[in-house]
């Protein structure tokens, strides 16, 4: 009995903190394998290159906790990047940025309306929007790549390449966004409502929470995060392909799931999503540093995602193997 109990405790602990344990093990392993891994330059570099994915993951965390999915963030990021680059030359950067945010938020509002107020299945709606926004971007750009004409004479690159007291701007923006959204989710009534709607939508409705409005707001938050990510992406390269965000929706989702958010809704935190993002970033970097090809990370990510979710579920049900007959 005592043995079974302690075993359950171990499983329970792994399920609750497994992702942090895994993260620590990875850091230790890679540090032993390559002493450049924990070099401050390398660490900052990894976080900087994870920032774009990370920002998108912050918004998707809200959507996932509210019990929905967002597969459109990749296309939407391409859209914001292309739009802001195009408007930069047409109306100047000061106007281009709010205009781009407005357009991206409008897309988010449209999705939020369909999923929140019309109660359509979020997987299919955002799958449709993935394709539709991709088409919109291609139509907007005429199928061409977008470049800023005068790359040397603009201050626009500060968002992607600037540094404040030695810390790259993308990291600062990512940290600021994570802090604000983390507080909004954990400490405000709105955050409580997001958990309530995702945990049990019917119960939330009966306790007077306007479910549609909460879901709608989550998609707005997601669109805002995507727009910020697009801004960083545009500032980093000052030119972009139409397909810059293609396929990122599933990587973002992988990071969010790795952070422990449940696809059923009602569970997850901003802090753990950030950990999920960092794990993906550091694995990628660590594997490259020990001399492996970039695609090895795909296989490693596969194994880690399944192990992470499996342990999480196993901890909740108290046994390792599923009861499915």
């Amino acid at each position, binding site marked *: 009995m005592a043995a079974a109990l302690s075993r359950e405790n171990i499983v329970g602990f792994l399920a609750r903190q497994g992702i942090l344990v895994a993260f620590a093990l990875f850091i230790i392993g890679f540090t032993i394998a390559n002493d450049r891994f924990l070099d401050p330059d390398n660490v900052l570099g990894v976080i900087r290159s994870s920032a774009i994915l990370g920002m998108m993951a912050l918004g998707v965390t809200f959507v996932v906790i509210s019990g929905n999915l967002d*597969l459109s963030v990749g296309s939407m990021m391409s859209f914001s990047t292309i739009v802001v680059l195009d408007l930069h030359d047409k109306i100047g950067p000061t106007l281009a940025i709010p205009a781009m945010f407005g357009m991206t938020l409008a897309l988010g509002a449209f999705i939020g309306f*369909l999923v929140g107020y*019309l*109660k*359509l*299945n979020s*997987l*299919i*709606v955002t*799958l*449709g*929007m*993935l*394709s*539709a*926004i*991709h*088409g*919109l*971007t*291609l*139509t907007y750009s005429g*199928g061409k790549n977008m470049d800023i004409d005068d790359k040397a004479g603009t201050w626009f690159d500060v968002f992607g390449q600037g540094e404040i007291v030695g810390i790259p701007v993308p990291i600062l923006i990512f940290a600021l966004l994570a802090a604000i959204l983390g507080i909004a989710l954990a400490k405000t009534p709105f955050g409580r409502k997001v958990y309530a709607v995702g945990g049990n939508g019917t119960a939330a409705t009966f306790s007077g929470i306007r479910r549609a409005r909460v879901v709608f707001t989550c998609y707005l938050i997601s669109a805002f995060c995507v727009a910020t990510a697009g801004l960083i992406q545009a500032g980093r390269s000052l030119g972009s392909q139409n397909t810059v965000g*293609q*396929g990122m929706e*599933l*990587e973002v*989702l*992988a990071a969010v*799931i790795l952070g422990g958010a449940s*696809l059923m809704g009602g569970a997850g935190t901003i802090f753990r999503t950030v950990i999920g993002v960092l794990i993906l970033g550091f694995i990628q970097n660590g594997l490259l540093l020990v001399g492996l*090809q970039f*695609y*090895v*990370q*795909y*296989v*490693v*990510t*596969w*194994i880690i*995602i*399944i192990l992470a*979710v*499996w342990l999480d*579920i*196993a901890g909740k*049900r108290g046994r390792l*193997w*599923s*009861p*499915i*007959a």
Partner: protein
Amino acid sequence: MQAGTLANYLRRGAIWGFIVLELIFFSIAGEYLAITDKAFMDAGNMLLLLKQTAPLGIIAMGMTIVMVNGNIDLSVGATFALAAVILLDSLSWPFMEELGDWAIPLAWTFALAAGGVLGAINGLIVWKTGVDAFIVTLGAMLGYRGLVFMYNGEQPTSHLNWTLVDFAEAQFLGIHTATWFLLGVTAVIWWVMNRTVHGRNAYAIGDNREAAVNAGIRVGPHMMINFVIIGFLAALSAVVFYSESGSVNPNDGELYELWVITAVVLGGTKLTGGSGSIVATFGGVLAIQLLRKGLAHIGADTSTVNLVIGLILIAVLFLDKQLNIRAKEELKT
């Protein structure tokens, strides 16, 4: 009650009505806008359309049975690519070259077996760990793609075998080889879903898993078989397609899962499981291919195709919801 069945009838016939509308629209619009003089409804054009439907269509049949079962598979694009790499690479193995044309069925077997094994891995994980199929196959989508890259780096894998090309380009009774495979797969999966115990159980499990368990149906093995089927079909799709083209890039098949799911949902299969039909899925893939080809015919570029398909998918979902609500209200009165 009668109107309820009418809504049902409407829903089932909707995809074919949509196809007819597309045909009429593109035939008429084509008269004014087409870049070529050829009519849209030309027999050769329609046969080609069927052939181009085959790669996605074959996978869509597997996706239907997996979705009816209440699961989903996001890894089909990567499985497709891995099967293609194995097919083409195995043809240039030394002992295979000695076999001459007998190497072809062997290479097909290798590729198809690989597809089945990849599907089985997904199915086994879903069954034994209880992790949601969406997450398992999302992970596998990355993992299997990684395997494709590890197999041959970032280089394309190529092997042109003329016997194979001749076979793939043949037109038996005027219909292309790929189309025959699509029709064959459609017929077999239709039979499996409507005439076998496994098919009926798959519907039962997707509709109400608890009830199925209580009725003594073993859920796990059925899910596993369905994942093997979709893995096998993703490989079959690759085998049919790459026999002709003879060269595969490691990125090939990307986003296939999304196209396939779009087609299956257009055909009316529910994501929640328990409902869906193979014939309607056939309509779904046909509708998408018609749209692509039709828009190209009237001179629209690919961006329009993406835009239109995305909006149609949402519109279908909306209409389906309205019909459902109405049918339920009519049942009450």
